[in-house]
Every structure is written in C-alpha cells, then in structure tokens.
C-alpha cells in the first residue's frame, strides 16, 4: 500500500477537470455496424408490416367505412373525400405507434433482458451515444414506414400537390421522433413491463382515437377540441393533413413544428439523463 506524503497532496481548491468525452458523432458511428446487422435481420418484416398495415387501415377505414361518409369539404378540413381526410392523419398516427413500439420493449430489453447496453457501456461509448444510435435506427424505421405508406397511397389520389406528400412525410417522421424520444425517456425509468401496458391504455390508444386522425377535433366540442389540440399527435396529424391537402395555414404549421421540436428535444434530454441514471450507478 502506498503511504501518503505531503508532496502527494492535490490542492484542495483545484477545480475538478471537465470530462473528456468521446465526440457524439463518432460514438454513434461506431454503432453503425451493430444496427446494420440488426436491420439486415429485420428489414423484411419492416417492409411487409409497413405495406400491410396501411393497406388494411385504408381499406377498412378509408374505403369501406369512408364509403358511408359524405361531408362538406369545409367540415373535413378541406378534404374532398373521407379517404383524403383520413390518410394523412392515419400515417401520422401510424408513425406514433411505430415510434412507441420501437422505444418500449426494445429499450427495456437492451437495458434489462439482453443487457446489450451494459456491454456497450464497457467500451468507450457513453449513454448519449447509445441513445443517439438507437433513435437514429428508429428514425430510419419511421422513414421507411411513412415513406412506404405514402407510396401506397399515391395511386388513390389523396394528395393535392407534388410537394404536399414530401412535407407531410417530413411532418410524420418529426411527429414519430417526438414520441420516440419521449417514450424512450419513459422506458429508461420504467422498471417493469406493466408500465408499458399503462402507457398504451392511457396514452397511446386515447391519442390514436381522439387526436384528429379519424375525425375533425372540432367534433369534440370546445373543451375537447382544445384538449386534443394540446396533444403532440394532433400537431403531427394537423401538419400532415395541411400539407397533404395543400390547405396550409403557415403560422399554425410553424406552431405545430415548434411544439414537436421542443418536445423532441426535451425527450432527448430526458432519454440521456434517464439512461445515464439507470446504467451508471
């Protein structure tokens, strides 16, 4: 054992040195091969479900149910048919569901069951790199899902301009990423699977049904419609629909984007702090 001497002493008022972290982009890049292998294994399922899910939804809700709905375009936020009304909202809602499913059990699995994160953190990688790479994979999944959904819908004539689907696609991915960061943050703090059941029952399903994907939120009455407009999903649905229908109120669109971006950044911050507290104990 070493014996301390006065000459060894560290000045008591010396400020602690700042951590020398691995650059963020470099840490994320080092995980590209891992996520590429994961994608190589799962991409077929992603493609099939990305095609099948919108096809079934649009067939059931847009075509079969929508066949009974004839409404004034003013009551359908400018849509000339119920199909044109429901499709942009459905894609945004589908983005939310994809993001939530990618950031609940998979995150818990990497923390608790397969403990992949534990093995990654034994290397120079840090929690923010893990969050960054995982969410980048979610963004890729969302892009594939929303992109395919949009392509499937093109022949139905539900888009009013050539640029509308592009901006609607960007809105849907933004909406999905907002949910991804917020739910990732929740998952880092959630200790048991029951928490996800509550999240789905009290969060995802009510949002899916009442955030304007299937009917105009004005149908919910004064209080209901304002409550619906406070939800992140409505911001995404509204953006997606305005762009798809070429019926854009730009200050509203700006507000929708701002809300989603702020929530996404907050979710990012909570995700990194949540994973750090969970793993670096």
């Amino acid at each position, binding site marked *: *054992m*070493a*014996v*301390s*001497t*006065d*000459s*060894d*002493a*560290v000045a*008591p008022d010396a400020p*602690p*040195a*700042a*951590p*020398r*972290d*691995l650059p963020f982009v*470099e840490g994320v890049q*080092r*995980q*590209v*091969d*891992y996520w590429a*292998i*994961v994608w190589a*294994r799962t991409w077929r399922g992603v493609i099939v479900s990305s095609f099948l899910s919108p096809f079934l939804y649009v067939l059931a809700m847009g075509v079969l149910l929508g066949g009974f709905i004839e409404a004034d375009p003013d009551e359908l936020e400018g849509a000339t048919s119920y199909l044109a009304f429901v499709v942009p909202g459905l894609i945004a809602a589908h983005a939310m569901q994809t993001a939530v499913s990618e950031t609940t059990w998979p995150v818990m699995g990497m923390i608790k069951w*397969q*403990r*992949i994160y*534990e*093995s*990654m*953190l*034994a*290397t*120079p*990688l*840090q929690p923010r790199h893990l969050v960054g790479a995982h969410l980048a994979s979610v963004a890729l999944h969302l892009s594939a899902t929303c992109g395919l959904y949009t392509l499937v819908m093109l022949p139905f004539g539900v888009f009013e301009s050539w640029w509308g689907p592009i901006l609607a696609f960007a809105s849907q991915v933004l909406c999905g990423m907002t949910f991804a960061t917020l739910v990732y943050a929740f998952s880092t703090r959630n200790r048991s699977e029951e928490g996800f059941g509550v999240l789905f029952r009290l969060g995802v399903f009510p949002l899916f049904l009442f955030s304007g994907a299937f009917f105009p939120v004005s149908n919910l009455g004064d209080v209901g419609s304002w409550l619906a407009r406070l939800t992140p999903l409505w911001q995404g649905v509204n953006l997606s629909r305005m762009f798809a229908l070429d019926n854009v109120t730009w200050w509203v669109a700006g507000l929708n984007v701002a809300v989603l971006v702020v929530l996404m950044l907050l979710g990012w911050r909570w995700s990194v702090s949540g994973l750090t507290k969970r*793993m*670096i*104990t």
Partner: protein
Amino acid sequence: MSDTLPDSTAADAAETPLHDDAQIVARGLWKRFQQGSGPSFDAVKGIDLEVRKGEAFGFLGPNGAGKSSTMRMIAGVSPVSDGELRIFGMDPAVDGPTIRGRLGVCPQEDNLDQELNVFDNLYVYGRYFGLPKQVVRERAGELLEFAKLTEKSKARVDELSGGMKRRLTIARSLINKPDLLLLDEPTTGLDPQARHLLWDQLFRLKHAGVTLVLSTHYMDEAEQLCDRLVVMDKGVIVAEGAPLELIRAHSTREVAELRFGAGEHAAHAELLGDLGERVEVLPDRLLVYTEDGEEVLARTHERGLQPLATLVRRSSLEDVFLRLTGRTLVD
C-alpha cells in the same frame, strides 16, 4: 470503520502510487448507494489497493462483500462516492472513455447479443472501440481460435453451451487488446471441465503479460490464478497478500475435518479443543487446525471418539476467510 464518508481531502493526499507501473491505485475508495429518500447502503467502505502491470490480482469474498461494486468503479461505469481512484494514472470521472478503451471487461453474467452469431458478437464489439473493420475481422478470427470457437463462428449465441458463452465473453473482452482485463466471477455456473479450460486460457493471457483483475468466491480459483489478492468482507479489505502468504499468516499447515452426528459438533469441539491450535465448529463438521492432521485423527480415536467421516487436507484460503471473518465463503 465509521459509517460516514471520510474527508475527501485526506484521500486526495494519497494519490501517488508506490510503484511506477501501477495500473490501478485506490485510496480510501468508497461506494455508497442511495435509493430515493430511503436509507443509504455502503457497498465499499474506504479501501486502499494497488495493482501492478502484469499482475494477476484477485478480490476474494462472499456475495455482497463489495467485490463487484469495486470492479464496476474500476471499469468506469460506477461513479466513485469518495476517495481516489486512478486507472492507468487517469481519473475515471474525467477520462472514462480513454480508460475503457484500454480495458477488457468480462461481466458476472454473460451479456452477449443472443440474436447475433458468434463472429458478429466479436465484430460489432470491436467496432465500438473504433477499430478499423479489417483489424476487427482479423482479431475476431484469432480470438475464435483462442476461445476454441472457430467451428461455431456462424452459430447463434443462444445455441452455445454455458462454457462456450463464457469463453466467447472473454474472447470479446480481448478484442481491443486490453492492458487490463477485469473478470467478475469468471467461472461461476460452469462445470469443472469448463472451468479448467477457462483457467488454462487465463493462464495463457497472464503469460502474455495481460494484467488480470478478477473477483471470485471460489478459493481454488483465487489460489490457482492470483499472484496477489485481497480478502473482502462487508465492504472492507480484511487481508491482503499472495495466497500462500495469507495461508501461512492466518492458518496452520493442515486441517483435520471431522464429521459427527447432527448436533454433536459443539460438544465434541470441547473434547478436542487441545488437539490443535484452533477448532472451528461448522454446522456439518469440525475443523481442527494443526501442523499434523494425521496425528489429530489418531488422538481422536485414542480418546474413544468415532467420527462418521474424516479428512486431512492442507489449509486453504477458505480457512483464511473463516479465521478472519468467522464465516465461510459460500453462506
């Protein structure tokens, strides 16, 4: 040991290692866990230690002794509550990524990716260290050879036996050619054959100059592998030295084990107390510490006592631990 954290400036004053080639230096190292507003728990209570380059150093102690908490702090994934810790001369709180880049970590429970095949587990892990693709591929091939898993290269991890998974985890921890390899309970849960195969591989690493730091509650493992070890109990170091030194210092040359009927051991201990330097009463047997175990057995029989079973053996680290803590390693 006080139950409050020591003055950190006192720990700061002992930063310089005794040896220039020390790879781990801890002074007054303390780990305290706090769960919400509940009571705190001190897992490690102000330990001092130093591990030199090329050494095989062990933490021996029962579950809950503080071994894993200490290993996690050394691995840079658990912040130090108080005291000083330097790995390769660097502070884990400041240079965590750099330190971990030179460490190999083999955790207590395998955390391999079950969905990936054997080769890919090594490959992606090497990439986390920022190693070029070609370098990782070459090293992965070499390590599969080392771990005797070349034929399983394309097998999924969940198809491997427990021993194979352990060897793969160790191979993975070597992908960055670490200067220091941390092994937390490396052979727990393995059958004897798999343990000996693993020990052989650890010997080869040791001869190649890799510093090994391992925690174990198996005394034979500590005796086989460690040049030097600390015995930990309840968060403190109760003894430190080479295995043989510790045995010589804290035990006799031999131990006579005598098994009597259930509940008879305490009474027989009274009758045999003068036969050895010390007698320990365990639930299932008596241990008589002596320089000559056969002599103890002969004199036991001379006194008309008939043990159900007897055994004479050399003292081990288990006896050291029993002497120092009053408990066996596996409670």
